[in-house]
Structures are given as structure tokens and as C-alpha cells.
């Protein structure tokens, strides 16, 4: 089955990004495909490569990057939300790309299921 995932919150502040990541991993482990994760609202902050949590804490930016590159998941950061919040191309961690809101509707159309994680 093809999954699309919508994440609405930044890393750390809310559990949404953690839950979305664990859901994506579990789906892939079961043989499903996660075609795209769309980062909207504060979730654009998930792409900030300078994020440096304490060494005994999880690093969500890195985890998303790895998921994206290892499993071909398209990690899309919404351009309008990113502009407002100061997330520029220079800040993007590996695997993330900035694109338009149309990418969210598109994955809603093309995926079998769209699952949202937010606050």
C-alpha cells in the first residue's frame, strides 16, 4: 500500500514528528511504500540541519534524512511555511527539498492513505 504522511509540528516541541517517523518506519517494515512526507506549518523546522539535540536524545532531523535517503521517501518542506519561519535552502538537511503546497494535494490523490500527525 502507498502511504503519504503529513507532519504539522516541529521536532521536539510536540511528539507529532516522532510519531510520524515511527509510523513511517513501521509501514516500511511491513513492506508498504511511504511515497512522501509533507512538512507543513512548524514541521518545516524538521529540516534544519543545525539541530543539535543532547547526545543521549534522538536527532529527528537526522532520522528523517536517513529515512529519506535509504528508502527513497520524498521529504517535502512547504515553501510558504518555510519562508515565514526562516527555513532556507542553505539550512536543509540531506534528503529534504522545498516545494509547493500542491505536493500535499498530489500525495493525497496518489497515495492510498494520507495520515496526519500534528498538535
Amino acid at each position: 500500500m502507498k502511504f503519504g504522511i503529513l507532519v504539522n509540528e516541529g521536532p521536539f516541541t510536540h511528539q507529532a514528528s516522532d510519531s510520524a517517523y515511527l509510523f513511517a518506519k513501521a509501514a516500511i517494515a511491513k513492506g508498504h511504500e511511504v511515497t512522501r512526507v509533507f512538512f507543513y506549518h512548524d514541521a518545516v523546522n524538521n529540516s534544519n540541519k543545525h539541530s543539535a539535540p543532547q547526545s543521549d536524545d534522538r536527532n529527528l532531523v537526522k532520522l528523517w534524512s536517513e529515512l529519506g535517503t535509504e528508502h527513497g521517501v520524498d521529504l517535502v518542506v512547504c515553501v510558504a511555511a518555510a519562508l515565514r519561519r526562516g527555513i532556507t535552502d542553505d539550512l536543509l538537511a540531506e534528503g529534504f527539498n522545498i516545494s509547493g503546497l500542491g505536493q500535499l494535494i498530489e500525495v493525497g490523490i496518489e497515495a492510498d492513505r494520507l495520515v496526519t500527525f500534528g498538535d
Partner: protein
Amino acid sequence: MADDYDDDDDGPEVVKRFMFVNRKAPYGSIYALESLEVVLISAAFDQDVSVVFMDDGVFQIKKGHDTDGINMKNFSKTYRALDGYDVEKLYVEAESLAARGLTEEDLIVDVEVLSSSALSDLMNSQDVVISA
């Protein structure tokens, strides 16, 4: 960066039933505004779009917003522009209105007021539900 709007011609051919559920008050957080931006974009994809206002989401379409005193953009007129984007199916939950002391007269756009039960039926006919 890709263009914010896709051309109609490039869109996939499938038509799905998309429902956008608005449950949050405006201005206190950005969800109302940014969710409206998603609804507008969805119009470019020729899908079957419904927009629901329930819980504090009904306050998004209260008449008479005047944001001068809080230094924020008043986006309430954009709801009136939805019609021009062929987004015509706007629904409000009756119970949410009543609990907040509001009636249809208070709303800036024409909507269909549904009971919880009728709204529940409508939700159960959708392919994609997006809420924030």
C-alpha cells in the same frame, strides 16, 4: 523551489473526495490561515472538495473580524473568495454553533448547517480528510 501552484493540465486525472476539517479558532494560532491556503491550492487540482467548520473552527467565519489592534493580517475575506475557486461545499456543525452562542446570521459566508449525525455521514463518504 517549485512553483506554489501546479497547472491544472499537469494534475493527476483521479478525482477524490477531499474534506478539510477546521476545528481551531483564528489568530490564536496559525492553523486557520495556513489551512485555508491548502484549501485554495486544492482548487487547482479539480478534486471534489468540502470544507467543514466545527468546534472553535466556526469562529474562523464569524463576521466582523478587525485585526488592527493585534497587528495581524485579517484573512477572513478570503473565505468569501472560495466560491470563485469553485470551493462551494461549506459545512458547519450545528452543535458547535449553538455551544458558542452563534447562529448562521453571524457567519461571513453561506454554509450548510448540519447536525453531528449528518456531518458524520458526510465524513464517512470522503477519501481524504485533512485537519490541522
